[in-house]
């Protein structure tokens, strides 16, 4: 920086002034609660009185609870299905949208529209779409000769219903990210491949996709972490049912804390979720390092 800047000490003081609101905010509403939550996961508490320290009991109970494994499994199932759907579809769309044709901006807007809408509102909308009698989906299926499906009241279909909604909602975001990644690939590579006589599919497989890999990877990670935190859609569409068939980690956490007042248990669930998110992030970071190594 410039040597004519005020003395170092006063620069640090100014920095403090500028940083103070953000640091106080992040500390008070982010860092401190995270630590507090960790502490609470080792206690038994119902918001009244003082928390009672119980050591690892919450975690032991959790790992011995069959419902925990059901919820965890359903969370993983939901996350995987949603992410695969919304990434594969987004990739296809991005490849199409990247072509130099007119009017692509209109399509981009259309696909992105669900992303900015309130998940609560769209869940209500899709509640109507999925309605067994009045909904447009069963009506459309009926036109194709398919019998009406009890979308929200049958365990398997309920999960599918939530996944479809989530894919529809998250698609556009991935499309934008992948488009950004595609536009960053220098055209010389594609052109060189064309000169070498590679056709469209060969170019896709050997040039485009490998160069897109870092972005693709990031998209998958972001989508995965987001999917693990699913709440709104499940709260609105299925309430975790039928019979816990769509119960996922955050929804379960919410019920434990604010319906049953099992604060300690809820905190333990939260930290298991945290651990999963950290593991996914770490895995992404490791594979990314490998990839960069391979590339250079």
């Amino acid at each position, binding site marked *: 920086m*410039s040597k004519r800047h005020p003395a170092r000490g006063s620069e640090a003081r*100014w920095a403090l002034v500028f940083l103070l609101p*953000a640091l106080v905010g992040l500390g008070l509403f982010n860092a401190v609660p995270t630590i507090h939550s960790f502490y609470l996961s080792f206690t038994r508490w119902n918001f009244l009185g003082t928390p009672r320290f119980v050591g690892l009991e919450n975690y032991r109970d959790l790992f011995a609870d069959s419902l925990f494994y059901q919820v965890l499994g359903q969370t993983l199932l939901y996350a995987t299905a949603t992410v695969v759907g919304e990434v594969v579809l987004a990739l296809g769309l991005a490849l199409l949208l990247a072509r130099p044709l007119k009017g692509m901006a209109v*399509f981009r807007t259309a696909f992105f529209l669900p992303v900015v809408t309130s998940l609560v509102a769209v869940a209500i*909308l899709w509640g109507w779409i999925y309605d067994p009698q*009045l909904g447009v989906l069963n009506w459309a299926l009926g036109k194709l000769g398919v019998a009406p499906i009890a979308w929200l009241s049958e365990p398997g279909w309920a999960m599918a219903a939530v996944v479809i909604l989530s894919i529809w909602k998250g698609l556009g975001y991935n499309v934008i990210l992948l488009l950004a990644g595609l536009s960053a690939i220098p055209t010389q590579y594609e052109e060189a491949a064309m000169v070498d006589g590679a056709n469209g599919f060969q170019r896709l497989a050997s040039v485009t996709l490998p160069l897109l890999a870092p972005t693709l990877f990031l998209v998958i990670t972001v989508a995965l972490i987001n999917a693990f935190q699913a709440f709104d859609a499940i709260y609105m569409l299925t309430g975790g049912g039928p019979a816990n068939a769509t119960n996922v980690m955050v929804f379960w956490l919410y019920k434990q804390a*604010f319906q049953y007042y099992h604060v300690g248990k809820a905190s333990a669930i*939260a930290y298991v979720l*945290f651990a999963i*998110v950290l593991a996914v992030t770490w895995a992404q970071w490791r594979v990314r390092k490998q990839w960069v190594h391979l590339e250079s």
Partner: protein
Amino acid sequence: MMKPRDALTYLILTVLGLLTVMPFVLMALLSLMTQAQSMAYPPSFWPAPVTWANYQQALSAAGLGRYFLNSLIVAVVTTAGQLLFSSMAGYAFARFRFPGREPLFLLVLATMMIPTQVNLVPLFSLMANLGLVDTYAALILPGLVGAFGVFLMRQAFLAFPTELEDAALIDGLSPWGTFWRIALPLSAPALASLGIFSFVTAWNAFLWPLVVTNSDTLFTLPVGLAAFKSSFREVTDWGVLMAATTLTIAPAVIAFLLGQKHFVRGLAAGAVKE
């Protein structure tokens, strides 16, 4: 004559695009139908007669007018805070030198890795202890500052030439003056991105407002909407419900359409960082 590949591309995009947008179209159409027509089977797709009564009912009897106001207050104040505090912090990280700057910034970034649900219970407990449950303060405070905003603004300020501060110094401006009168205006595109992103995020927030409010005079739109939906006992008046959802979705859509470029750029910047 269009190449067959292009025609195919347009066909696929049009079909998928229509499928994506169709639910919203149906929602708007339903919102204009009488209850009788909305319950008809097979479903009719064109409102006849067109009725605006659903919107009237949603806004007054269902209380959406109040929820709308609450969402507006929360979203606007949150966005203002995010813009101001994130740019201040981003400016400090980008333009000042002080011991521990990089580690501190990494710490700020680290908070982005914490799922918000981990903080849910302690934040609620904090608000309860401060006597702030069921207040605007509780709705707004946790969202006033975010690591993403700091990251975005720092990115923007890093791009400025160093001569900026030199010139300001010659003009006799204090660091605050430099920030407020020169750097901030120059970072307008980044501010626009962050502003739209913050507004939409605050507008659509559900879990925290759900947890921290009890009285329906304080409900934001998503919470009020959820309450409204569950208030239907036997028969759901889909027309009114769809009017309510349209009202909820509209502002975010408008904000998005007006500032698409900024919104998209902000999102992409946050992700394609490294």
